[in-house]
């Protein structure tokens, strides 16, 4: 099911906030139909990387090729066309609070297609059913639990039958059972619809369930990339520490804390 064909290619991506380099020389390929996990701790630049992939930020240099076209150098019209093939599930689910669930899911269909309202209705129902929210069409986002909002966000991302879905921390802030449900949903969508998925996460449990390829970030650079087994057997100290869930060395962090407090080197 996962082909060797590269569908997203990131080449030497550099991103800066002012003078600070957040991502430095990121290069990787995402193969068609796989679940590609971007793994990293807080401040590793993983969310910044995702925001670049979906075009919410522009890199300082480097290229992002999506199906061979450079996303960073496109005209506004070409970007909109490409975005119709993309879905994104946000960390805060980012549903429009003023619209019902059905209207949220129907929004891209209404704005981008000339479909009849009755067709849109049916499609909306199907998408909500798909994520296990059948019967919740008329609810407002504020009336739902965190896990349900995440599912609704995924239903909206699925609205245009996308080729890619990007997930920002899909299981963050959810209890283990709900989180496992979301992981299962990601896997189901990938297996049923052959959707290429890029998932940003820091949850090892999710990674074990969903990842075909794992890309590990630290301090804006890739420290390891490969299957989960390959990374688990890696000799890189940070990867070993992350997988073993070990804290930073106590001694050095205490002296660093003292330095930060006193300002004395």
């Amino acid at each position, binding site marked *: 099911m996962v082909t060797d064909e590269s569908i997203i290619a990131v080449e030497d991506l550099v991103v800066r906030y002012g003078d600070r380099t957040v991502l430095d020389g990121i290069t990787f390929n995402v193969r068609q139909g796989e679940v590609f996990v971007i793994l990293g701790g807080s401040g590793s630049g993983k969310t910044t990387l995702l925001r670049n992939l*979906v*075009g*919410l930020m522009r890199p300082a240099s480097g290229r992002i090729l999506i199906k061979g076209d450079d996303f960073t150098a496109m005209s506004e019209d070409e*970007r*909109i*066309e490409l*975005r*119709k093939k*993309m*879905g*994104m599930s*946000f*960390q*805060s689910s*980012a*549903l*429009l*609070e003023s619209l019902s669930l059905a209207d949220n899911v129907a*929004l*891209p269909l209404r*704005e*981008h297609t000339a479909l009849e309202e009755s067709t849109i209705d049916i499609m909306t129902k199907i998408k909500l059913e798909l994520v296990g929210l059948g019967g919740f069409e008329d609810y407002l986002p504020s009336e739902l639990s965190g896990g349900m909002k995440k599912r609704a966000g995924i239903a*909206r991302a699925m609205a245009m039958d996308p080729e890619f879905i*990007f997930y920002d921390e899909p299981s963050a802030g959810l209890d283990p059972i709900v989180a496992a449900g979301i992981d299962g949903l990601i896997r189901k969508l990938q297996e049923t619809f052959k959707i290429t998925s890029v998932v940003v996460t820091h949850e090892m449990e999710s990674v074990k369930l969903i990842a075909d390829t794992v890309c590990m970030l630290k301090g804006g650079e890739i420290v390891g990339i490969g299957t989960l087994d390959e990374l688990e057997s890696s000799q890189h100290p940070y990867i070993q520490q992350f997988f073993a869930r070990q804290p930073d060395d106590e001694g050095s962090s205490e002296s660093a804390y003292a330095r930060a407090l006193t300002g004395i080197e």
Partner: protein
Amino acid sequence: MTKAVDVAGHVGRWTINQLAVGARVSVLMVETFAWMIVAPLRGKGLRVKAAVEAFVEFGVRSLPIVGMICFLVGVIIALQSSYTLDKWGANRFIATLVAVSALREMAPLMTAILITGRSGSAITAEIGTMKVGEEIDALEVMGLNPIKYLVVPKFMAMVLAVPCVTVVAMFIMIFGGFFASVLVVGVDPAIYIDMTTDSLVEKDLVTGLVKSVFFGVAICWVGVYRGLQVEGGAEGVGRQTTSSVVTSIFLIIIVDLVFTVLFYFI
């Protein structure tokens, strides 16, 4: 020496910041007009339904409060002018004063300030909350331009709503003056109506309406700009909403001054 350098540094930074604000506002203006005028001509559609809904919210729903305030301001202007005019036995000129100040100044100004407080703040809070909740990002990723989706309908609604409400406010303010003059001061109603119709010329109405269109522009753009500037959480929304109302009222007074000076000379 260091003090002079400090001051120069502050002035420089302030200037650069203001220029950056100017640049961002200009981009916002250009994009609004592009999505309002150019894009529909190229078949990209205009969200007319959302604009109508916004017009009802900004315009129709503000009528009760604008009407009440403007009636009271009419009463106040009448009684205050009577204080001086009575000494000269010229109470019938209350009608002239109320009519001219309502049309040229007070009705447009009161309407704009009330709509700023009511809807300018709401625009900032709505867009700010959407920004904090990643809703603006979500629109963009779905290929929906936030300017087209959010700003243009509000802009069209505001630029139409402020003059429309202003016209109603003008009539109500004159009625407030009439009410106080006839019932409190004791001016003859027929004389009051005569004096009012005699004193008003078309130019007074045009002056008020031209101003109110620009008040609408200022309210909407300040509201949107401040909303898009929100960073952080609820606190950021609160700060920008306050700032939106203050900036808006300040700009309204400046626009008012510019047009008053302009109309004074032509």
